[in-house]
């Protein structure tokens, strides 16, 4: 039963990474840059199951950047505009990130509940036969 704490803990860790990345994406949703390469690219964590003794938690294998092209805006008056007068906005999809945030926080809550239930079960097991 103790390994449930590891499993739920790993899931909470993974979901908080996801929440962190989402926060970074949302914070940079309106960032602009002078070139397409410098524009902020939306980041997403990649989850993978930890397979140890058939049962295991989850971990974040790494963070990938979205390959969607950045939004080009014609703003010649902007201080960061290039020779053609374009600025490059981030490719973050705000609606998608909001949905991501809700999903991550729900998953986090579920795992906290899991921990609480398991803790109660273990405490009751300790009291067995008393």
């Amino acid at each position: 039963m103790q390994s449930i704490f590891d499993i739920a803990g790993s899931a909470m860790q993974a979901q908080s990474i996801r929440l962190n990345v989402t926060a970074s994406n949302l914070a940079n949703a309106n960032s602009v840059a002078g070139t397409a390469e410098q524009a902020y690219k939306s980041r997403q964590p990649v989850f993978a199951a930890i397979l140890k003794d058939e049962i295991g938690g989850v971990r974040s294998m790494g963070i990938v950047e979205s390959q969607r092209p950045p939004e080009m805006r014609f703003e010649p008056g902007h201080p960061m505009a290039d020779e053609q007068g374009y600025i490059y906005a981030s490719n973050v999809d705000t609606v998608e990130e909001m949905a991501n945030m809700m999903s991550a926080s729900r998953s986090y809550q579920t795992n906290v509940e899991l921990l609480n239930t398991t803790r109660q079960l273990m405490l009751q097991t300790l009291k067995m036969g008393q």
Partner: protein
Amino acid sequence: MNIDKLIGVHSEALRMRAQRTKLIATNIANSDTPNYKARDIAFADTLKDAGWHNGSKTGVSQAGQLQATMNTTHKNHMTMNSSSTKEVVMYRQPNHASLDGNTVDKDAEQARFAENSVRYQASLEFIGSRIGSIIRTLRGE
């Protein structure tokens, strides 16, 4: 008098419930992992493997009869699980397909987790009351 007989199926049920809690926790933890396949314990098969049928012990466990032994000649070799009760773990049939190959239905798993923990508590209660009655018998109250 055999203490195992007094407690009956409940000790094995408790172990199975603990294992199932772990499996469902793994399923919930991996509810966002691409290509993860949800798993669960086949309860009837596990009970049969433990040698139980219609609430009574039928004797030799089927798993025990079928289990072959494996020799290990190196410290890195895997050994087979020697415990008499081996849970029969199977993949869950998904209700609907998902694009990332994940078959975890988070709400259904949560419901199963709740159900499983109630049943775990029920087994605990059964064992507790059996132990209580043994102690009362010994005291002669």
